């Protein structure tokens, strides 16, 4: 047992943080959010340059071969700075399908470009009415000629508008919520019949609706085994869930630090408000939530690499429950203790509130994971 970050991990953390401190301060972020694309290609290039896009991928494709704890280092930093670039969508979701289930040809074709920052990806899966049920797929893929024709509609696709390549789930067999019969397809953003409309998320991340109307792809677009997509999806979504848990730890840390700072500097009735015992005790509870969130995220990052699917589901749900609760507790308290200022666009704390709120909902809210945890053994 060992709880220290390795030298490499510390270096990675410092590199990212040094960059974000200057290149991604609050004003810089506001400009990026307001830009037409909603993310910055310069920042993306810088992330590639620093090797941040390479962390989880194998060295055979130019990757760093990192563990999920390495990814925790990255996600925490991104969470603290509220980075809105499509890192999770590309590295944590889209790229994972290729790395885990792609053919060598797919990997060779995609991963190097992804790592170099040339290719962005997204995972088009959620459908209207599915809520958090990963098996709910009504989008159809019909065999046609040497490939497939895809028809359907995908919603709330994280950074679907920025992606060059989409991983799309579609049903090649079975009923709307059957576990079997889901197949994963690689679809270029510019495929004929594919339309993407974008929305800005509450947290300034972009999300998209993706409509597929007679989109044709070749056999080589299939990722993994036909009809066997669900276990792959579950694995990748669990992985992404753990990543947003780690991201939340960073955002919670910011909320903690900013609130503590506010309590020390903001004066009312002639004294810093941090001298009021009722607020002190609530600040302590924020600290405890933060430490507990860090612990559970750490545990999940370590355990998800263990390869045991049952244990993975249990720990991922445990982490998401605690992170959702902590995100809710800390974000609400941070705004409350900031008073009116915490409600405004002008302070980073309100943006942190928004991101934490969305992370709590993302990939299953606490209720969803409570049910999954209860069913896990």
């Amino acid at each position, binding site marked *: 047992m060992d709880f220290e970050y390795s030298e490499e991990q510390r270096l990675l953390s410092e590199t990212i943080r040094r960059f974000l401190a200057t290149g991604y301060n609050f004003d810089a972020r506001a400009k990026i959010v307001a830009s037409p694309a909603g993310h910055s290609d310069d920042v993306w290039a810088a992330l590639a340059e620093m090797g941040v896009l390479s962390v989880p991928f194998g060295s055979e494709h130019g990757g760093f071969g990192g563990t999920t704890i390495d990814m925790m280092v990255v996600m925490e930093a991104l969470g603290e700075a509220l980075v809105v670039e499509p890192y999770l969508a590309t590295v944590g979701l889209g790229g994972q399908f290729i790395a885990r289930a792609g053919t060598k040809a797919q990997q060779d074709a995609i991963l190097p470009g992804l790592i170099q920052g040339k290719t962005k990806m997204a995972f088009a899966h959620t459908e209207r009415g599915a809520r958090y049920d990963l098996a709910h797929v009504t989008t159809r893929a019909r065999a046609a000629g040497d490939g497939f024709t895809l028809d359907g509609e995908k919603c709330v696709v994280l950074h679907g508008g920025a992606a060059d390549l989409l991983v799309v789930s579609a049903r090649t067999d079975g009923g709307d919520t059957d576990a079997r019969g889901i197949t994963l397809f690689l679809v270029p953003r510019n495929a004929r019949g594919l339309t993407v*409309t*974008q929305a800005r*998320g509450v947290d300034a991340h972009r999300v998209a609706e993706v409509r597929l109307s007679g989109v044709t792809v070749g056999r080589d677009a299939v990722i993994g085994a036909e009809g066997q997509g669900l276990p792959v999806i579950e694995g990748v979504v669990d992985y992404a869930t753990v990543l947003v848990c780690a991201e939340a730890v960073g955002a919670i840390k910011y909320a903690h630090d900013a609130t503590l700072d506010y309590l020390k500097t903001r004066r009312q009735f002639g004294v810093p408000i941090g001298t009021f015992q009722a607020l002190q005790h609530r600040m302590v509870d924020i600290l405890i939530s933060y430490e507990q969130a860090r612990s559970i995220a750490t545990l999940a990052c370590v355990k998800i690499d263990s390869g045991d699917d049952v244990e993975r589901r249990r720990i991922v749900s445990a982490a998401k429950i605690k992170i959702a609760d902590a995100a809710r507790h800390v974000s609400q308290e941070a705004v409350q203790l900031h008073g*009116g200022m915490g409600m405004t666009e002008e302070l980073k704390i309100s943006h942190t509130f928004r991101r934490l709120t969305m992370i709590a909902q993302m990939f299953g809210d606490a209720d969803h994971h409570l049910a999954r945890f209860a069913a896990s053994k």
Partner: protein
Amino acid sequence: MDLNYSPGEVAFRDEVRTWIRESLPEDIRDKVLNYRELTKEDLLGWHRRLATKGWVAPFWPVEWGGTNWTVVQRYIFEEECETAGCPPIVAFGVRMCAPVLLRFGTPEQKQRFLPRIYDGDDFWVQGYSEPGAGSDLASLKTRAVRDGDHYVVTGQKIWTTLGHYGDWIFCLVRTDATREKRQEGISFLLIDMKSPGITVRPIVLMDQGHEVNEVFFDDVRVPAANLVHEEGKGWTVAKYLLGYERMGTGRIALSKRELVRVKTLAARTRVNGGTLLDDPRFRDRITRVEVELMALEITNLRFLDQLRRGDRPPGAEVSMLKIRGTEIQQAITEMMMQTAGPFAHPYRAVDATAAFDTFTASLTGRYMNLRKATIYAGSNEIQRNIIAKATLGL
């Protein structure tokens, strides 16, 4: 003890209900029920309809337009308005400035301002908070210097709700900075917002809505006739007003309506082969809020009943209604957002062609917006301080 409506009260309820059904414009109701922004004209338009009917200021003295309703009738009226989706009667004129004028105003001030407040001729707003003051109201810095028969006002107010609609603003200002006790040397002024030297600047909140403002005063000349009560006695006025300010913040009838809405949304949301409303996890959260609200309604009525018997302005009791009422409002908006599941995420369409669900998106906006409820009108922490001191004697 009898919690049932009397036949007369039932008849009154039916009268109100019928009148609202016939009088509330469809488009206004839709805006209210779907959490869309109300324009100044929307708000004043509804105000004027009520004024014409004679129902805009039930608790005023009859000679100024009050209805002489019982506590129960007033409660029924508010409940019917909220349930039907009427716009709120903006409180700053009718519920805040007017009680102050009725209590402290000169006959001339009453004659000049009350009928216009009643008729909705002016949109009133409140100039209380200042940057850095927050809940510590008495630390206000905006100065008013007497110059002949005027005061010259310089300073800044913040969190002025609907300040961008404002025709008039009532302000606490410091007329004497030499007093040792900070509560002394404060005065209560009525200021025409068309006066030269006033600038209103929006504060955008995290739901990206514009409802609060900063108001800057730069050598604004205010006739001394607009001073309410004596110079330096503004704190007395402010304290009197505080109870009234908090009076409406429980918003129980609104929460009842919204709770029905949550249930409707949850019943429509499929999860695990059933609906979200059947899911014990979600359902129990609704139930606990519903039960708390049932209790709070009775608590509210009990307090109103006590006020009526004691014939005194609202005191620390309303702090309790404010605390629990706002906690309930927040819990409801949070559950509403949760019904949206993954669809809580998209907030504003980027592409004009997007099939964008503005109603669902508004749920997250409401959740964010309502975080203000435990902060404004005296944060819930301040309310707890008030109860600890005034009710518990700690």
